[in-house]
């Protein structure tokens, strides 16, 4: 990029807010999805909405495409620059701007870390409900883009249920406020479609977040099973009994081993599967539900039911669950986390399919996932230095997604399409469907200059091979 242009950007965000050194830029070449890499030509780090607007206006004038980036914990390559030379990072936009506990909302800049939101109001008995497992690092902007969920999504819903409003800078630099501090929406719910648009509508600079009361009490269980089918049957039975736990998570043997190696929380490494079940709400209501759940677990031959005895034990249990995917790094040099959804009654079928695919491609695949809402996360282990094995991982991943679709499910529960799954969109949508959706995008982003070549396969054809600036990491 020419120096005059860099100087113009530096005049807006300060010289230390523009990264242009080649070596420095190389660390921006991927997010949590490491199978494909591409380095931006420039990274710009604004601190405020005003700075974002000025930067975006300049890019608009110069007709330069750009890509927003939060913490880069995404798992579908959403912030990978594909024919977008400039990356706009929100890491310096990390201030909480306003807290209103009476009206139960907070206004936070897009770069605020998810967990900071709950931490800021914890002592007053409040929380921000969406709790992705990456919450210690991922940003509100990234959550809005991916409509992120988490273990407690089962009862409390996903990001869109807890974001009241967003401030969005459109690709021409115009600032729009979508939604607000109250729930009622007049006209079309533009806030709603912006959440989950994977950063293809513009840059979210602020969000108004709903704060909710922390539950009065919890019951958190670790339930140990000899086999995976026993565990999945328990999941179905709990749901069928009309109980909605706050969370219902499952881990298979491979993941139990990873977690135990990492955190030494006392998970039985010989177990076939464990469930983490959490009930929350008013103290008075919890014991009857606890009894029902205990009975269901017993009926399904649970080997052991451990109830967390205090807040410290509960925290330890969640910490190990939330960091389980990362702990998979101890099992192999690399892993690829898949994300698919099936109707929750089909969880046993999809797990059986994954086991078959694991066998077929001779790959180790671990499972740790949101069993209560049928959102699976198979974790495919490999070594990226082995090209042939990496190929098998890509193929196996695609086959797993195909299996989800065949079971009446979908391609992604929460990690988004990004670049990773563009090729599979046609499994679910017709070309007409996709055209309709790109027309919606065009209302916000008519020139497709904000995060281009994402979600929908472009006329360039299959992005894997044709996009010139992008290479697989191998």
């Amino acid at each position, binding site marked *: 990029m020419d120096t005059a242009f860099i100087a113009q950007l530096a005049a807006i965000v300060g010289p230390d807010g523009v990264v242009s050194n080649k070596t420095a830029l190389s660390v921006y070449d991927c997010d949590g999805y490491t199978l494909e890499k591409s380095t931006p030509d420039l990274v710009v780090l604004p601190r405020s909405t005003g700075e974002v607007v000025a930067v975006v206006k300049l890019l608009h004038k110069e007709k330069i495409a750009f890509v927003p980036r939060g913490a880069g914990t995404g798992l579908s390559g959403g912030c990978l620059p594909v024919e977008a030379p400039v990356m706009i*990072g929100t890491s310096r936009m990390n201030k909480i701007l306003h807290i209103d506990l009476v009206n139960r909302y907070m206004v936070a800049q897009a770069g605020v870390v998810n967990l900071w939101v709950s931490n800021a109001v914890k002592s007053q008995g409040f929380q921000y409900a969406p709790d992705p497992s990456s919450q210690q690092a991922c940003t509100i902007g990234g959550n809005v883009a991916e409509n992120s969920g988490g273990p407690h999504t089962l009862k409390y819903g996903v990001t869109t249920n807890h974001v009241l409003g967003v401030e969005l800078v459109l690709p021409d630099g115009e600032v729009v406020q979508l939604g607000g501090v109250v729930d009622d929406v007049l006209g079309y719910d533009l806030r709603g479609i912006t959440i989950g648009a994977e950063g293809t509508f513009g840059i979210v600079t602020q969000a108004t977040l709903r704060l909710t009361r922390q539950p009065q009490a919890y019951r958190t269980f670790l339930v140990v099973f000899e086999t995976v089918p026993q565990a999945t049957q328990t999941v179905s039975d709990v749901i069928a009994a009309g109980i909605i736990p706050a969370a219902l998570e499952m881990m298979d043997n491979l993941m139990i081993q990873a977690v135990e190696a990492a955190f030494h929380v006392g998970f039985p490494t010989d177990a076939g599967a464990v469930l983490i079940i959490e009930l929350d709400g008013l103290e008075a209501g919890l014991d009857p539900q606890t009894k029902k759940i205990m009975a269901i677990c017993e009926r399904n031959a649970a080997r052991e039911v451990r109830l967390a005895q205090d807040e410290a034990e509960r925290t330890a249990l969640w910490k190990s669950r939330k960091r389980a995917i990362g702990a998979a790094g101890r099992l192999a040099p*690399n892993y690829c986390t898949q994300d698919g959804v099936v109707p929750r009654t089909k969880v046993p079928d999809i797990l059986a399919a994954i086991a078959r695919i694991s066998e077929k491609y001779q790959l180790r695949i671990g499972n740790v996932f949101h069993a209560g809402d049928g959102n699976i996360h198979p974790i495919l282990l490999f070594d990226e230095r082995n090209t042939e094995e990496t190929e098998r991982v890509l193929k196996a991943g695609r086959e797993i997604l195909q299996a989800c679709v065949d079971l009446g499910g979908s391609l992604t529960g929460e990690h988004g399409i990004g670049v990773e799954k563009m090729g599979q969109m046609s499994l679910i949508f017709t070309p007409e469907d996709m055209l309709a959706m790109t027309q919606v995008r065009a209302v916000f982003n008519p020139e497709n200059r904000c995060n281009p070549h994402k979600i929908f396969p472009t006329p360039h054809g299959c992005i894997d091979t044709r996009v010139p600036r992008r290479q697989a990491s191998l």
Partner: protein
Amino acid sequence: MPQTNFVDYEKFFDCVHCGLCLSFCPTYVELGTEMDSPRGRIATMRSLHEGKFPLDAEVVRHLDLCLGCRACETACPSGVHYGELIESARSFIEEQYRRPLLDRLKRWTIDKVFPNPLGVRVFASMLKLGSALGLSRLARSDKLPQQLRSWFSMVPERGSVSSATLLEHYPAIGEKRYTVAVLSGCVMPALFGATNEATVKVLRHNGCEVVVPKAQGCCGALLLHNGNKPDGLARARQTIDVFNGLNVDALIINAAGCGAMMKEYGELFKDDPVYREKAQRVAAKVKDVTEFLGGIPLIPPSREVKKSVTYHDACHLAHGQNVRSQPRALLRAIPGLQIMELQESDWCCGSAGTYNLTEPAMARRLLDKKMANIEATEAELVVMGNPGCLMQIRAGLQQRGLSIKAVHTVDLLAEAYEG
């Protein structure tokens, strides 16, 4: 570019690029630049190792800026040994990279002064002279430029420096339960003599017979953190030889940075056939003083200390050794003490060994943050387990003219045992 081999290549693959460490890294949160995050630094080191990058000013800049606080290790689910990676990269930089002159001079001085007892004594006498002359007040003078003020703020307040040389042997007070050795350290005797004495007192009150081998010197930590591997290893070998032959239950350390390094002696000498086993034996005995006291049935102190205190987690205790609950439990055992919670208590204060000397600008930003959090507790004392943090935080308190005092955990404990 040729591949370089400064560390076991496989170690890079522990990092799965998940980013969960980012918000725990002080330099990333301050600057927002991925190059100054743990994940970014690991990627940079890996490219350096693979020979994809030249070792240039840009690479060195981002690796220099790392505090070595190891908060990223606490955050990382994948078990990345970040400390080992950065230390290997640093020694590679020191071997291969020619720094600008001023930088070289600064680093040379640090290398020569700190691990050398004579050097420390000279440095300490200068500080003490400054202290006696009341130079610390200059830190608050608004007539001086900021840079000078921050130098004067390093001069301790009158009466806060003490030198003391420990005896070689102390009997237990009461029934003897353990025999322990104490590392007296290189900086401690000259600047924190009273804290060394307090360590011995507290141990004796807990039934420990204490031995302090005379021949000991610097453990090598400061040198190794700065990438001076040859000298650091030499110091470490000396230390191993001094303590290896002793028949003791534990080797007690009151400086977190030293303890964290000494626990890694085994790893450090794993390829050294002569030292491997000795190093492992010594490392296995190493315990921070609060870790040791927290692990034995404590004989609780009986004197009341009617003060309000707050606790700062030294990086090399909390992140480096996972010692967090023990010092807090010891404080709770002191009658009359009121304990306030410190926000972001395990956020680096900017001291980080000699970081405050090599990277003053970032050190200052982190100190400012720490000061604001300490002030907000309204405590009279801030307690911690590391001399580096004590110097840095005392400097910060002085510069702001705050009346809060910074003390070592054992200083306070000794007061509760003996008044």
